[in-house]
Structure formats: C-alpha cells, structure tokens
C-alpha cells in the first residue's frame, strides 16, 4: 500500500492528468445527458401539472358536441373538452398585434395565472404574458377603455360589446406556449360561456374548433418516452376508427342542410322568376295601352293646330295637353325601366339555375371531412422540448462521446506508459519474490483510483455545474422551471462501471504483458525495434536528426498514442468550432444566399394594383401565395407552400439547384422542395409525395427540383402546376409580398401601405430577418453549450498535452541528462525534444482536422432538424482554430515542461 502511494506521489502529474481527463470526459458526457433528461422530465412534470392534452383533434368540418360525447366514450380516452379559437387583432394606442382568442377549458390544458386570476364569467379575459408585455397591458384594463379587437376570421365571435366590456383578470402562462421561441401567436383567454356558438348558421351552430383529449395513462408517465407515444398512438388509432362514422354523420348533416338551403334558394329563384314573368306580361299589356295613349296625345296635338292661337279654348287645351304629356312620359319611363329590369332578371335566370346546379353538384361531390390528430408533435413547444433534448443527446452521443473516447485513450496510454516505464522495477519486485497480484495491485490502485476519482468528480461537476448551466440557458425560453435536476442512476452507474473496467483493463493489459516476462529480462532494457543496416552509406540527415526518428520508431506505441491523443483533442476543437460555424453559417448563408428581400408584407388578399402602388414608392416586390401546408412522405411534416412565378420568386428568394447552383425556371412539371426536406423524406427529382394545403384533400405532387435552403421548409410551385395538381379552377390568392426596400425605411413603408384606401386585411409588415432572431434565440443555448464544450476540449487538449509531454520528458530525462553531460546545450536538448513534439503535433493536428471534420459532419447532420439545414460546408476557420489552439497549447505545455531541461541535475546521471 505504501509503495502504491509512493508510486502515485512520484507520478502525480500523470495521476492528476488522469483525474482531470476523466473529469472532463465524464462531465461533458453526463452533464449533457443529465440536462437532456432533466429538460424532458421538467417539461413532462409541468405538462402533467397542467393536465396538458395528449391528443389534439381537429376536424376540417368542425366538431360537434355529439362528436365530443362519442370521443369521451372511446376506449383509452380519460377526458375530452371543446376549444373555440379565432384569430384577432389587438390594438392599443396605435400599436396592434395578432392574438388568438381561445376558450378556457375546465380541466384540460389549464393555464397558470401569473398575475391576477383566470376569467370566470362573461366579460372577463386573461392574456398571455408576452401579449400583455407587448401591449403594455395589466390586470384590470378593460376592453373599449383601452383595448380594441378586430376579428381576422370571424367564426365564433366572443360575446361582448360596448355596454359589457371585458376586463383583464389575469396574466397567464398557457401550456400550449411553454417555449417562447416558437414564434406562435399569443392567447387571449375567455371563458367558454363567452363564445357565441349557438347563434350561428347550421355549419357552425353547436360546433367547436378542436377537442383537447387526455388519455388514460399511469400517473407521472414520462411524456417523452416511447411508452407514452405508444399509448397515445393506440388512442389515436381508436379515434381514427370512429372518425369515418362521425365524419359521415357530420358530412351528411352538412350536405342535407346545404341541400335544404339550396332547395330554398331554388324555390325562391323559381318564385321570383314566375313573378317576373307575370310582371313582364303586365308590363307588355301596359305598353300597348301606353302606345294608344301616346297616339291619342298626338291626335290632340294635331287638333290643337286647328285652333286660334291665344284664344281661351286654345290656351286651355294646350295646358291640358302639356300636363297629360308630362304624366305620360313619367309613366312610360317607369314602365320601360321595370320592363328592362324584369327582362334582364329573366335573362339571368338560366345562369342562376346553372349556378344552383353547380352548387348542388358541389355539395354532392364535396370532399368528405377529415379528422386531423396531433400528439405531442402538434404542439410547437413540445416539439421544441424534444428538439432541444434531442439536440443535447446528439451532442452527447457524438461530441461528448468523442471526449470520453479520447479521455479513455489518453488514460489507457498514460497507465500503460506508466507501467512500461516501471519495467525494471516490476522485474526487481518480481525477482524479490512479490506475487503478480501484489505487483498488479499497486498499478491497479494508481489507474483505478485516479480514473474513478476523476469520474466521481466528473459526475459531481456534471450534476452540480454543467447540468444547471445548460438548464439555466433553457430556462429563459421555457415557462416551466427547467431546473428539475436529475442524476440518472442508470447512466451514472454505467459510466462508473465503464471507468472501472477501462482503467482496470488498461492496467491489466499493460501489466499482464510485463508480468509474463521473466524478472531478469525485465531488468534489462528492451531491445529497440530492428531496422535495416545502413551498409555504411551516408545519411542525408545527421544522426542527431535521425535519432529523433529512431526514437519515434522504437517507441512507436507512445508516438502513436501521442499522435492519436493530439488528434483527438484537435478533433474536439475542430468539431466544436465546425458545429458553432455550422449553426451561425446556416443563418448567415440563408440570409445572404437565399433570402434576398428586406421585408415580408402579409395581407389577406394582395392585388396587382397595390403592388404597382408600392413599387412606385421606390421598392421592388414580388407577390405570391404563402400558406401553411403538410406533406406526407414517409412521415407527416409541416411546411409552407409558396405559389407564384418561380422565376420572379427566385429573384427574391433564391431557388437554386443544390447540386449545380443554377436557378430554377418556371415549371409546370412539379414542385421545388428544399434539400433538407428531400433528404429526410428520401425525395429526388421525379419522385412523388402527398401534399395538403388550404383545406384541400391530399394531392399527389411530383418533385421537379431540389433547391439549397437552410431555414424553413418552403415547397414552391408555379401557378400552372398549382392549377394542374391542386385546383384547376381556383387560383391561389396572393397574400404575401417579398419587398426589397432599396434603402427605404420599413416604418415609412408601413405608413405608406396603410395610407391606401384600397388596402384591407392588412396583417403584417415584418423585417425579413425577424425569424432570424427566433432562430438565433433557439440556437443560443446550444451555441453556449458548444462554446463550453470547445472550452472543455481546449482544456482537455491542454491536460492531455501536458500529460503526454510530461510522460515523454520523464521517459527521456536520463537521455537528456546524458546529452547535457556530453556537452549538448540546453537549446540543442530542447530542440531534440521539440522536434519530435513538433512532428507528432503536426501529424496529430492533420489527423485531428481530418477526423474532426469527418465526425463534425456527422454531428452537424445529426443535429439538423426537419426545417433546419445547418451549414455543412468544410469549415477552414474551424481547422485553423483547431490547429492554432492545439499549437498554442503545445507551445505552452512544452515551454512549461521543457523549462526543466535547464534545471536537469547532471549528477543524477551517475
């Protein structure tokens, strides 16, 4: 035991290095693992607390209260509640913003009142904090006094008016929006009693927008576990089973009601036609009488010419004639007008009939309704939790794993080198009669205790430093407390076990080989690896230089481990920077190479005249239709559908072939899809997939091309292809304009746009890079973690290099002393040492850059999301950073270690 402790004391640099390396490796691995788990756990608990829905069910033809009753009875459904929701515009003091008013549920997805209380009756409302902050509203403010509302889509209006204004009773946090980075429209919450769903037309009456469903599940079940997903899917399958019947009932009802309405209309039109016909007949008869009357008036005028002008009789007859003629003209005009109207009305009748027929056909051939169900994936915040957690796991399984592997390699190298160095001592102890197990125990104590100490410290650092650091980063973006710290026993024990096995294995591997060798042989220095004799020929290099190569050759194991360790550390730094640049590069590339407009103007309907007016103001623009859509290509994914002239859109949103870089021309052969979408869905030009947009049923579309894109999932199609694949009759409504400001001010442009009387349905005018900030914010935590990992990688590089250089120095110390004794100067001795270090460092850096780039590419790919393609290009800057940091550490460490050459005790050589 004493000998083992002395051994540790003698090799304290290596011992401490192993502790530090194990600490760094375990910290990076477990810290991220803990944080990933804690994030999901915290989210799961928060969702559990608010009884957050498990399934969100939407019907394209709305859901009825009857549907709700049936849903509640489906096996596996624990509860279901209706939700009404509508888009509104909230304005105050000239500031306006979009909001969703939403009905308050009684039991499911209950929001939390951050201030005040939840609304309880008509005339009360609560709003999400982001909305309140944005509008400067607080508890107690009232509608009509301070706040105005406008409906963007006027379904299910809220019952309030000037006489009964609503009061803001609370500022809330809603579980739907537990992540602040999703850019979703905030909620204005009202009691369900406030929703006017009864006094509606037959297609809305007693209907609601979506059903919130909670399934039967064990209490505290992890909502991000496969078991949970399986349970949800099972209930969704059951709901799918009843959906066709419910849809049929609903569709039949709507069809029946629609046909009834149509029949009423037909009846009305028919009655109207009959009336018009009758009227026409009357008018024709009246026309005959009027003609006769006109003739009589002409006769009276002729008779008048026979009378003496100025006579009393003449004057009297003239006056009567004028009066009669005036009356006649008035009646004639009225008659002609009526006749013209009746004739026109009767002439339009066939068209009306045709329209009725078309409507009837439309009703009969209407697309059946569809139930759309979402599990957790339907909620952006849940998706974000999963994304953040999976990003962390990706980091852990790639970047951190590299840490662990490199750490393990260096620990193995250190232990095995330490044992190798004590070859003679092992020989001596063996010769003195020590048992193998006694010799082995000494080294096991060294290797296992240092690695385990580092691991335990790493576990503590992971749990009490890295995990809270990461979670604090995420805490800013989540409404729930992410600090639900977690020390995963399974992973932790696995790490401890792996450390134990690895360190003990390294000792046994290194020592077992030596322990097999007879003691006397161990006490002799090993024979260097053989080499061909030079045959007396002269070498180009001096023996001094060749000796460095000979040393490397004879100590190939150490040299290889050194190169691999340096490569590993360099690779870690390259990976870190590549990852960092991949994230920032994706944003930069997207907004420099793809997006070529300054502002996005959204309007309900975009008119050509308005575009011309805006362009005349001095900006350039393109109009297009931009709507959310879903596509099915192996999996169900959200995207946005852009319809317009591909060439014109391409001038503002560059659509370039990802392989050739060539811009796409207008095509009616298919849609253009982003590269990331093509990759995750396995789509290539020529392949087909299903698309649903704008309430249409699934449409089969063909891929015409794949363009380079980094953020978002825009599917682009020409108007021609739209009419070919989606709707041959109805053109999509342009609702978005991409605008290049050409130096003009965005606020002034907004003022200019709003000044037009022709503008209606104005939704927003936002800077093009507004979503850039959302992306920036959502990646800021991962950026911070990557930065921390880079720091840890650099630290590890420092420790590894210090350890390796120290091992190298200790190994060569006697040789160096001999050199110094024989007259080599300090500079020559340091140069002798440094040359190998320079060579191994350069080789390590080159290998590290290659290795780092290859692994970084995989990590970058693993961290990509369906709507985010990171910058995958080779990052020369990351190479340079990796090389420079490794070099700097090499120089510093060599400077620190090789300073000892100056103080070499030459007398030790005796």
């Amino acid at each position, binding site marked *: 035991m004493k000998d083992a402790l002395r051994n540790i004391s003698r090799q304290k640099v290596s011992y401490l290095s192993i502790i530090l390396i194990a600490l760094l490796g375990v910290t990076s691995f477990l810290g991220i693992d803990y944080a990933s788990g804690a994030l999901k756990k915290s989210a799961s608990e928060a969702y559990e607390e608010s009884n957050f829905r498990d399934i969100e069910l939407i019907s394209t033809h709305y859901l009825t209260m009857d549907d709700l009753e049936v849903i509640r009875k489906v096996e596996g459904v624990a509860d279901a509640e209706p939700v009404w929701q509508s888009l509104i515009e909230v304005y105050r003091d000239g500031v306006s913003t979009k909001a969703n008013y939403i009905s308050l549920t009684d039991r499911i997805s209950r929001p939390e009142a951050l201030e005040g209380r939840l609304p309880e009756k008509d005339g009360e409302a609560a709003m999400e904090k982001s909305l309140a902050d944005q509008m400067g509203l607080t508890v107690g403010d009232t509608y009509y006094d301070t706040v105005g509302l406008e409906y963007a889509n006027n379904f299910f209006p809220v019952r309030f008016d000037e006489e009964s204004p609503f009061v803001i009773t609370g500022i809330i946090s809603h579980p739907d929006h537990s992540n602040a980075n999703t850019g979703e429209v905030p909620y204005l919450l009202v009691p369900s009693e406030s929703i006017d769903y009864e006094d509606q037309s037959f297609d809305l009456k007693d209907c609601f927008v979506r059903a919130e469903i909670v399934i039967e599940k064990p209490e505290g079940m992890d909502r991000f576990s496969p078991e949970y997903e399986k349970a949800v899917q099972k209930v969704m399958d059951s709901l799918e089973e009843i959906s066709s019947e419910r849809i049929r009932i609903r569709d039949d009802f709507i069809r029946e009601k629609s046909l009834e309405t149509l029949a009423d209309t037909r009846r009305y039109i028919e009655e109207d036609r009959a009336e018009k016909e009758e009227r026409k007949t009357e008018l024709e008869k009246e026309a005959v009488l009027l003609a006769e009357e006109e003739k009589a008036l002409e006769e009276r005028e002729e008779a008048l010419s026979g009378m003496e002008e100025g006579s009393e009789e003449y004057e009297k007859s003239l006056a009567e004639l004028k009066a009669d003629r005036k009356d006649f003209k008035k009646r004639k005009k009225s008659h002609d007008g009526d006749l013209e109207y009746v004739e026109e009305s009767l002439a339009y009748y066939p068209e009306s009939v045709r329209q009725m027929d078309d409507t009837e056909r439309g009703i009969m051939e209407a697309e059946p309704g569809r139930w759309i169900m979402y599990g957790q994936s339907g909620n952006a915040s849940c998706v974000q939790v999963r994304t953040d957690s999976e990003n962390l796991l990706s980091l852990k399984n790639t970047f951190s794993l590299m840490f662990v592997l490199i750490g393990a390699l260096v620990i193995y190298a250190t232990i095995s080198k330490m044992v190798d160095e004590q070859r003679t001592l092992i020989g001596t102890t063996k010769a003195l009669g020590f048992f193998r197990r006694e010799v082995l125990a000494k080294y096991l104590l060294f290797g296992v205790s240092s690695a385990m100490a580092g691991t335990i410290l790493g576990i503590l650092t992971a749990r009490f430093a890295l995990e809270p650091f990461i979670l604090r980063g995420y805490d800013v973006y989540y409404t729930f407390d992410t600090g639900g710290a977690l020390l995963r026993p399974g992973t932790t024990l696995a790490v401890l076990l792996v450390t134990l096995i690895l360190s003990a294995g390294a000792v046994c591997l290194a020592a077992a080989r030596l322990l097999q060798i007879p003691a006397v042989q161990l006490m*002799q*220095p*090993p*024979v*260097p690896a053989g080499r061909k*004799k030079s045959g007396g020929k002269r070498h180009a290099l*001096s*023996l*001094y230089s060749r*000796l460095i190569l*000979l*040393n490397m*050759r*004879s100590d190939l194991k150490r040299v290889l481990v050194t190169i691999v360790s340096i490569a590993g550390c360099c690779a870690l730094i390259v990976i870190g920077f590549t990852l960092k640049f991949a994230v920032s590069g994706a944003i930069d590339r997207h907004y420099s190479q793809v997006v070529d407009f300054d502002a996005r103007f959204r309007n309900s309907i975009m008119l050509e005249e308005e575009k011309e007016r805006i362009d005349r103001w001095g900006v350039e623009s393109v109009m297009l239709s931009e709507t959310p859509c879903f596509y099915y290509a192996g999996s169900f994914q959200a995207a946005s559908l852009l319809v317009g002239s591909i060439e014109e859109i391409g001038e503002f949103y560059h659509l370039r072939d990802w392989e050739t870089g060539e811009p796409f021309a207008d095509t009616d052969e298919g849609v253009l899809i982003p590269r990331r979408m093509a990759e995750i869905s396995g789509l290539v030009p020529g392949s087909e997939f299903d698309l649903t947009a704008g309430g249409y049923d699934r449409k089969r579309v063909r891929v015409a091309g794949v363009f380079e894109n980094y953020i978002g999932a825009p599917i682009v199609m020409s108007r021609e292809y739209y009419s070919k694949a989606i709707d041959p009759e109805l053109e999509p409504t342009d609702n978005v304009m991409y605008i290049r400001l050409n130096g003009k001010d965005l606020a002034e442009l907004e003022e200019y746009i709003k000044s037009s009387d022709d503008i209606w349905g104005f939704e927003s005018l936002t800077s093009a890079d507004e979503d850039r900030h959302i992306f920036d914010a959502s990646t800021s935590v991962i950026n911070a973690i990557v930065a921390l990992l880079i720091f840890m990688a650099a630290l590890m590089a420092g420790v590894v290099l210090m350890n390796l250089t120290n091992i190298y120095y200790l190994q060569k110390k*006697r*040789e160096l002393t*001999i050199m*110094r*004794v*024989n*007259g*080599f*100067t*300090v500079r020559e001795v340091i140069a002798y040492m440094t040359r190998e270090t320079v060579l191994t460092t350069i080789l390590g850096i080159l290998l590290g850059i290659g290795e780092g780039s290859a692994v970084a590419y995989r990590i970058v790919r693993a961290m990509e999301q369906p709507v985010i393609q990171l910058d995958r290009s080779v990052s020369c800057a990351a190479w340079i950073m990796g090389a420079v940091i490794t070099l700097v550490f090499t120089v510093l460490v060599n400077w620190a270690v090789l300073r000892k050459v*100056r103080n070499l005790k*030459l*007398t030790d*050589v*005796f």
Partner: protein
Amino acid sequence: MEQKRFTKATWQIMEQLLEVDSLEEALAGSLEIIVNTLDSEAGAIWLLDRKTERLSPVFHMGPADISGISVENGLGVEGLVTKTGKSVMVTDASSDPRIDGTVFDDGGLPVKTMICVPLNNLRDVIGCVQVINKKDGSAFDEDELQLCERMAALAAITIEEKGFSVDLEEEKEILMSLRNVTREYPSGDGVTKVLRGINLDIYKNEFVVILGESGCGKSTMINIAGGMDELTDGTLTIEGKDFSHPSDDDLTRYRRDYVGFIFQAYNLMPNLTALENVEFIAELVKDPMPADQAIAAVGLSARADNYPSQMSGGQQQRVSIARAIVKRPRLIMADEPTAALDYATSIEVLSVIENIVRTQGTTVMMVTHNPEIAKMADRVVKVRSGKVASIRKNMHPLRAEELVW
C-alpha cells in the same frame, strides 16, 4: 599514557613496514599512523632523487596538495633537513627564521608548527618525514619528535632493504587545479557540507584514482571537476584560467570540448547502435576521432551494429569509453566504471582506459571503491569527510592485467 600510545604507534609502524607487500602502501600507512598519532593536520614523506638532487613528496596527507612539487636539496625546511640530516622542530612558524613559507602554505595549508626528521639510511640521507600542525593548535614536543625520528629510521631501513628509488619525472603541467573548494547543499533548514576545502592539482596525461568511502565527497569532487556541478566556494582553474563560477554555456562548452565521461551505468542511448552512440557524440565536436576508429580502439568493431541491450556490461562500458574518447578530450572522468562488472570484464575495461592514458595523452580521473585499481594509477587521492585525506604517488604503477582482487 602518552608513552604507551607512542609505543603502540611504533609497533604499528613496524608492522606496516615489515608485513605489507607494497612498499608504497607501507610508507603511506606509516605516514598515516604518525600523522594520526600526533593528531596532526598533514604530513609528507619526501624522497631525494640523486640524479637531479631534488626532493619530491611521494606520499602526503592532509588538505594541501603538494604532490606535483619538487624542491632543490638544501632549500626549505625539507631541503635543510635532508641536506644536514638533522631534525627540525618548529614551534611557531611565524617567528621562526628558518621558515619562509612552505609548500604546504602554497598548497592551501598555513603551517604553524612542524616536525621534520631525516630519513637516514646507513650511508646517507634519502629524504625526510614531515608532520604539520597539531590539530589542537599546540606545539610539538620532544617525545613527538622522537617518535617521528623512530618512524623515519624504520622507514629508511625498509627503503634501504626493499630498494625503493625515486625517479623524478619532468615537472608535470597542471591541467586543473582546485583550491579550497567547498560544496554545500541545502538540507532542510540548514546546509550539508559535502566538500570542505579540497586542494588538488590534476596534471596532464596522468591517471588519477580517487578513493574514498561512500558519501566522502569524491563523486561531488569529480562532478565539479567535470563541469557537472558548481562549487560553493574556492577556486577552480583549468589550464591556468579561472573556472570557479562559469556560465552554463561555458560549462556546456567545457563538457563538450574538454571532457569525456565514462559512467558506472554506461548511459548509452538505447535506440542507437554501438557505433551510432559514438557517432552521436562525434557529431557534436569539431575535430572528433573517426567513430569506427574509436570503436576499434576499444575492440568492439565486430559489435558496432549492436544495440546496448544486445551487449554485455563490459561491452557497453567499452562503447561508453569509445564515446568518451571520440571527442579527443583532454580529461576523462570515469565514475566507478567497473563497479558493475566482473573481474575479467573489469580488467578488460581498465586495460582500455590504461591504453588511452598511455597512447592518447589523455588525463583520466577515476573514482573507485576498489583499492586494487588504485595500484595502476599514477596518483591515488584519498578523500575523507569532504577533504583530501592523502595523495600517494605510485612510483611503479601496475598494469591493468597485473591487478588481482
């Protein structure tokens, strides 16, 4: 009591002179007995070379190195005693008109009191015996003078019987000179004095053996002489130039150009063959001996391509010697070069070293525990407690193959 001690000393001296095979050892031992009995700081036996009429100290003890000195018969106290055949006792050197500086003073030991008695054989005076300074500072007395005279008489008879003759060589050129050299090392709160005032001259082309117990300071002394350690106090001159406090560069240059090293543990570069080990050092200096010639000089041409680990200890040590000589050094430092070798191999190695001294004019300083090896040295320096205890000149050094242990 005093008489009893002197009688005992006389018997010891007789025993030394009569029973010890080697006359040099017998005389050196006798001098040591008399110096110790009289509790003195130094002592010397001077012998006269009749051809040159000069006296030289063949054995001397104490901190002052007077071994390279010779004085004209009749001059100085030594010359006076040898010339007249009469003993001299100095009780206060500072006021004694016969004393006008002594060789001990020049060697770093100020003389205060002295006994100098002639070595009288049957026909004439062949030299003298000197004892310097009582350690307690008191003066020598008549009894002590008589003891010295008895010892001198016995020694003279023995020399007469065994035919010891002095053949004084040409005065040797000093290569290196250490004067009052001390070396202290920090130890806990205080310091450990390893060297306490070394006075020693090393001559060109001589083979000096340093003998001493472990920890006596002999390795420290050759470390300083070899430029591997620095002295704390005193002076070190090399070929007349002060080298007491050289810079690291000066020391490196000195080791590179001036000194060759032979280590007990060989200290060869493990990744180089025998020849490469020699070439490695040869590349370092301006005018080296061809490496293969150096290897041939140690008789290892056949093993030139072998790695150290493929050679025996003796072969490795011979490579170490080849590595030392390839630089054509002025001085070779050998630290226990045969300590780890068996007898036969040791003799092989010593033969090589002997050959170097004889054929290449190199000075060799060798530290050893083995007193037998001292018999092949030109001079034997004994170090004790950080000081030179004695320096003995071998009048008839043995050849390496004549050594037996």
